[in-house]
Structure formats: C-alpha cells, structure tokens
C-alpha cells in the first residue's frame, strides 16, 4: 500500500491550543517537509498526534496509560478555560492521498469539567472515524473495523520503521539485543499467515491423534505420554520466553547505563567507560576463541584416539605388509584370471603346452598372484598406516599446542577481568552519586544477566530434549498404528499434516533467511553511501542469530566503537533497508534527526537521505541547533517553500501554535 499525508489537523492535543492546520504539498523530487521548533515546543507531540490518530497510542510516551497526576491529552489551558459542566475534545485528523483516492482518519476524545471544577475524561468517548473511497463512493466507518482498515494501510508492527525518534535511532545499535533486531526483521517478514497456519495444523494434528482408536494399551500409553510432553513443551517454551524477555530488559538497562557513562560530561568517566567497552569486546572475542579452541581440542582427541588405541594392531598389520613387500610377495599387478585362463587352456602364451613342472610352477604362482591383485590397495594402506604413525607421533606436541593456546587465552581473559573490576571499583568510588548508583546497578545487572543466561541455556537444552522426546513418541506411535488397519486413514491424514508442518517450517526459515540477507545487503549499501568515512568500512553483516557486525577495512568488527553520528547512520541505514523491503510506501517522520551529528555527517545525511527516499515524504522535525545554515542550504533542493512549518510557543510553554513559514 502506498500513501502520503496531504494534511494534518490538530485540535487541543497536548500543548497545541485550538486548531492547528498543516497542509502538505506533494512533490516527488521535493519530498522534504520541515517542522521547526525549539526544544519543548511540541515537535515530539506532532509525532505523537499522528500515531495516536492512526493507532490510538503515542509513540513517544513511556506509558500510554493516563496517570491521574499527568498532563491530560487534551490541552491543559483549554481544559482550564472550560466552564463547569462543559465538555471539550482533543482531536487529530489526518488526510491521506492514496492511489484509490483520499482518505480521512479522525480520532477524538472528550473531557469534561463538573460543577466542582474536577476534570475527567468522558468514559468511552474515544472515537475513531475513517472515511475511504470504495469505487465511486466514500465509505465512513466507526467502531472495531476502522482499526483493521488502518492496519491494512500500514500495519501497527511497522510503526517504528516509519515514525522514528532520532535519539532512539542513534541508540538502536547501542542498546538493542540481537533478539530485538531479529524481531524488527521478523515484523517486516509478515509471517503472520504462516504462523497462523502452523498453529492451526498443530491443533489439527493433535485433534486427529485424539480420534485414533486406542485399540491397544500401548497406543493409549503413548498418546498419554505425547500429551504430557506437549504440555511440558508449552510450559517450558512460555517460561523461556518470559526469561528471554527479562534478559532483554536487563541487557537493555545495562546498555543504557553504558551509554550514559560513555556520553558523560566528565572526561575521566568517558575514558573509563571507553576502556571498559574495549575490554568487554576483547573478552567477548577471547571467549569465542576459547570455546572454539576447546571444541577443536575435543574434536582432535576423538579423531586421533582410535589410532592410539589401535597402535599395536596397526603396527602389527604394518609389519605383515612390510614383510610381504620385503619378500617380494607383492609383485606387480597380474590378474589371477589371466593365469587361470592359461591353466584352463593348457597352453603357454609362447604356444608350448603347459604340462609337468611348467604347469606345477604356474599353479603355485597362481596363489602368489592372488595376493598381487591386492598390491595397489596394500601399498596405499601401507602409506596410510605410515601417515597414521606420523599423526600418533605428533600427538603430544599437538596436545601441548592446544593447552598453550587455551592457557594464554584464559590468562588474557583473567587479566581483562581484573581490569574490568578495577574500572568498576573506580566508578563506584566516584564523587558523583548518580554514577555510583548506576555502577552499583550495573554490577547487580551483570550478576543477574550471568545467572539468567545460564538458566536460559540449561532450559533451552531441556526444551530441546522434550522436543526430541515428542519426536521419538511420534515415531513409536506411528509404528504402533501400523499394527491396526482400522487407523490407516487417520494415519494417512497425520502424514499429510506432518509434511505440511515441515513444509511450513522450512518456508518460514527460508523467508526469514532471505529477508535477513536482503536487509543486510540494503543496510550495508545504505551505510556505505551515507557514512562519510566510507573507506574505513567494508560491510555490514547480520548473522543468523541477528548479531550485527560493522566490518572495518582492517577486518575488525567496529559495531561497539562507532561515533554517535555513525550510530545514527547505522540506524537510518537499517531502518531504510527495512522500509524498502517491507513493501509499504508510507511517509517517514523523523524527530530530531541531526542531533549530535558532526558537520560532515549532517552534510551527508541532508544531501543523501532525501534522494534515498525519493518519492516518499520525509518529515524532519528539527531544532534550531540542527537546522543550521548549511543544513537549510542542503535541503533547499528537496523542500517546497509551502512545506516549511514553525512551531511557536507562548512564554509559559502551555500553548503551542503552528505557522506556515514558506
């Protein structure tokens, strides 16, 4: 679905007092819309107004549950000015242009003031109205179906890729866990249909199994076991899901603390955190190398052990071969059949008859020749055995090499760990209470994360075991069914369902893999185009487990060492990759897109991003510090004068107004 926003009308929403109307001119080349306002003027509430109107929630608010003491959604000044027993409403109307014709989406909520002056929202007053074209007529919908219509326009799950907070985008790759990145990619994979089909088939499978006649006590028992394990699987999966969510929360909180320390105004704190980042990365790499070294050592042990166990046996067989070679009993390859033929014919190749001693000699030779047929393979075997001896001979040296490597890595890991503990102690001894508190919390989080990761690892293994048990029970069950002809039809049905589930699982994996690869390629190409130091980086990799790497020209992974500007560009590259792959062409709205950017990256973003999103409306909600003269000049070529708006605010910040500047 493709659409653009032709106008936005905001009435008494948050700090917007009265009705503010913004009309946007549509132009494919000049696709930028600027909404300019200083901090606190209400830029973020423009973004909130849009998501509230479309989906009923405000994207930039931590909680969408109205707290009694919180500012109401309806403009506080307008509510104050309301007479007792009066009503007022907050309303946002968005008009869209689609290829089928214009849409109008309106959401409003009412507030009232009673005789005593108490202000409350009117129960059930929130109402969404959608008017859209259908053939030659306009259809107006209210009620539950309206939200479905909007979701068809742009699914709610995709909001984060179109309604973007610059600050969050900057932090996206600093605080997001691989699971969250995977989730973002999965959102655009639009796998709901496949997932629904999988769930449905699993339900049908269980239902068919229940219908099978429990003709033997064994079938009955297997079915009971199967149901038991299925229930175990469900419970365990649910528990694991919750634990993973909790782990993500901890990881996110820890990343936020790291970010806070990394951007702290004290140089010492920044340096300590910077050093900690490097040490953490180093230990992560050491850990990976350690586990690889341990696996390689075990694998080598398994490969070499048989030869050492069989050392004497192999040695003995080598002696036997060697003896035959030395005695010359392994003559060049002569086929036994050739000698047999001569004996049968009773004639030598020279034409003389084979009789007497000549025949006896040839018969003796036939025995020897039978061995000569093995010449080739025996010689190969001899060489193989000699190579085995060589491998056995190297065993001690090879094991010592593994031990040295593992010891070195472990020492390096311990040294880093000591330095990390020292950094943590230094931070805890800081004069700044906030830093002390955050560092204490970080230590606490590290312990919790470690414990939780261990539990999750253990429980994942347990879940795998349960899945294997279920698979085993199904095999047992199928072989029991074979014994009873009555169940043959149901068995066929089960086969079909099982194959369909397998196909769906494979399809799901295939789609997810392909989309991940597409996102990776697009994000990589976007990043290398938008980044100023494009020669410093090679590519962006998104692995199977959704860990992201930004590969430096020298081969290092720089994902944890990017500057604030580079993180924003990484976020933008990823989001625009997701947008383009999602297949939805909707306006992109970015709040504070250039904060913390250096001049070079501002230049790059403002000259390249609009080109990137050519044909797509790009709303930039900017502060005066972001909208510098250079930025203004760069954006001129993409900006129609009529699409430049300014937010004005009164002195006490209670009323904001929007004015067209162009």
């Amino acid at each position, binding site marked *: 679905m493709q659409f653009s926003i032709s106008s936005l009308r905001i009435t008494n929403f948050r700090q917007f007092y009265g009705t503010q109307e913004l009309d946007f001119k549509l132009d494919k080349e000049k696709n930028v819309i600027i909404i300019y306002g200083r901090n606190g003027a209400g830029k973020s509430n423009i973004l909130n107004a849009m998501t509230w109107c479309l989906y009923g929630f405000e994207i930039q608010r931590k909680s969408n549950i109205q707290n009694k003491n919180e500012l109401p959604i309806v403009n506080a000044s307008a509510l104050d000015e309301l007479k007792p027993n009066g009503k007022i409403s907050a309303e946002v109307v968005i008009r869209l242009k689609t290829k089928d014709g214009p849409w109008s989406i309106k959401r409003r909520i009412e507030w009232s003031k009673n005789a005593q002056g108490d202000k409350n929202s009117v129960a059930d007053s929130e109402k969404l109205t959608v008017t859209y074209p259908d053939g030659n007529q306009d259809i107006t919908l209210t009620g539950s179906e309206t939200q479905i219509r909007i979701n068809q326009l742009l699914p709610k799950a995709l909001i984060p890729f179109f309604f973007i907070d610059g600050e969050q985008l900057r932090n996206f790759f600093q605080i997001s866990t691989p699971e969250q990145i995977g989730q973002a990619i999965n959102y655009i994979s639009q796998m709901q249909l496949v997932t629904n089909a999988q769930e449905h088939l699993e339900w049908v499978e269980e239902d068919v199994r229940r219908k099978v006649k429990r003709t033997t006590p064994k079938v009955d028992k297997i079915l009971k076991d199967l149901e038991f394990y299925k229930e175990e699987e469900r419970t365990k999966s649910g528990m694991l899901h919750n634990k993973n969510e909790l782990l993500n929360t901890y990881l996110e909180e820890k990343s936020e603390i790291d970010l806070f320390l990394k951007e702290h105004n004290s140089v010492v704190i920044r340096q300590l955190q910077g050093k900690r980042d490097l040490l953490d990365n180093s230990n992560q790499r050491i850990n990976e190398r350690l586990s690889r070294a341990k696996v390689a050592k075990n694998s080598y042990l398994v490969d070499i052990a048989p030869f*050492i166990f069989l050392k004497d*046996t192999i040695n003995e067989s080598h002696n036997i071969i060697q003896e035959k070679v030395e005695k010359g009993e392994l003559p060049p390859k002569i086929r036994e059949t050739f000698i047999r033929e001569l004996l049968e014919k009773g004639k030598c190749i020279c034409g003389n008859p084979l009789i007497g001693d000549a025949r006896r000699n040839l018969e003796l030779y036939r025995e020897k020749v039978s061995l000569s047929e093995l010449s080739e393979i025996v010689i*190969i075997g001899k060489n193989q055995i000699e190579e085995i001896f060589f491998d056995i001979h190297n065993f001690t040296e090879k094991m010592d090499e593994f031990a040295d490597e593992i010891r070195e890595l472990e020492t390096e890991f311990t040294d880093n760990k000591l330095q990390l503990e020292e950094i943590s102690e230094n931070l805890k001894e800081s004069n700044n209470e906030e830093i002390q508190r955050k560092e204490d919390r970080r230590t606490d989080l590290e312990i919790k994360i470690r414990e939780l990761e261990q539990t999750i690892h253990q429980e994942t293994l347990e879940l795998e075991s349960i899945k294997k048990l279920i698979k085993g029970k199904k095999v047992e069950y199928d072989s029991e069914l074979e014994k009873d002809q009555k169940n043959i039809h149901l068995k066929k049905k089960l086969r079909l369902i099982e194959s369909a589930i397998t196909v769906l699982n494979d399809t799901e994996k295939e789609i997810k893999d392909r989309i991940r690869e597409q996102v990776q390629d697009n994000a990589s190409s976007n990043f290398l185009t938008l980044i100023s130091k494009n020669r410093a980086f090679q590519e962006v990799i998104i692995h199977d487990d959704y860990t992201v790497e930004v590969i430096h020209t020298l081969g290092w992974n720089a994902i944890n060492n990017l500057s604030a500007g580079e993180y924003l560009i990484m976020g933008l590259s990823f989001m625009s990759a997701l947008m383009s792959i999602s297949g939805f062409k909707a306006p992109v709205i970015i709040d504070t897109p250039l904060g913390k950017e250096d001049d070079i990256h501002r230049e790059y973003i403002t000259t390249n991003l609009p080109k990137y999103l050519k044909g797509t409306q790009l709303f930039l909600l900017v502060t005066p510090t972001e909208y510098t003269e250079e930025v203004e000049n760069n954006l001129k070529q993409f900006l129609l004068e009529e699409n430049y708006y300014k937010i004005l605010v009164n002195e006490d910040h209670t009323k904001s107004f929007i004015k067209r500047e162009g």
Partner: protein
Amino acid sequence: MSTNHYNEPRYVGYSKEVMKYYQTDHVDSWTDSKSTSIFAGKMQKDLFIFAMAVGKYYEKKATEVKNKQNNVSVQAMKDNQKWAVLSIGIEEKGDLFCLKDETPIYSEAEKYAHEGIKIIKSNIDEHSINYPLKLEEILRNILEAKHQ
C-alpha cells in the same frame, strides 16, 4: 587418495540398544552439536571408529550385534579410518588375503564397536565433563608405555 576396496560394505551398523548415542534426534545423543559430550558435532562414523578402537583395545567383542541399524556410511569414512578397521582384520588373520573380502572385517568391527560404546558410556558416567581429560591421560599413558 582412494582406491577400489574389495567387497567393501556401504554401511555398517550398531544395535538399537546403543542407537540413542549415535543419532542426533535422541535425548541422550552424544553426536548432537548441542550435546555436552566430547563427540558433540561429530559424525556417526567417527563415534563408530572410536567405539571400535576402544572395544579392540580392551579386547571386548560382542558375539552378535542384535537389532542392527545400518546407518554408518563406510563411504563417508576417511581412508585412515578405513585402514584402522582393516588393520584389525590383517592383525587377526595374520595375512593380507582378508582384504579380498572386507565385509567380514567390518562385521567384526561392529562387534568391537558394540562393546566399545558400553565402555565409553561407563567412562563418561564416571568422569562426566572431565572425560576428555581422562581420555587424554589414557592416550598419553598408552604412548608412554611404548617408550618404556
């Protein structure tokens, strides 16, 4: 380098009793990459050769492998692994004629492997995650015994 072997079987097997250690989709699998065993990520043929060598070393051989599952591909074995098997045949027969028909040698290997698995199981039960260390010690001792 490979050459034509005489009557080399395509597959060798193990009994149903020990199948769970070989196959990855069993709870007790040793070869499953997620298993904590030393054999994690290895192939069935690697475990077979290992078990056969252990059985031979401790001179334990089953009289018969019952309910055999022929799942171990001989073709997938490396040449040195095949020669470990064939060495047993050559040593036991005392000559090279056995190489004219390799099938009986592999059948003997199955019998050693069957008992070998049981020995490995009891070692793993005894040493748990320290089994690789124990194995390393055993191998070093075998090699040192040669030099003494």
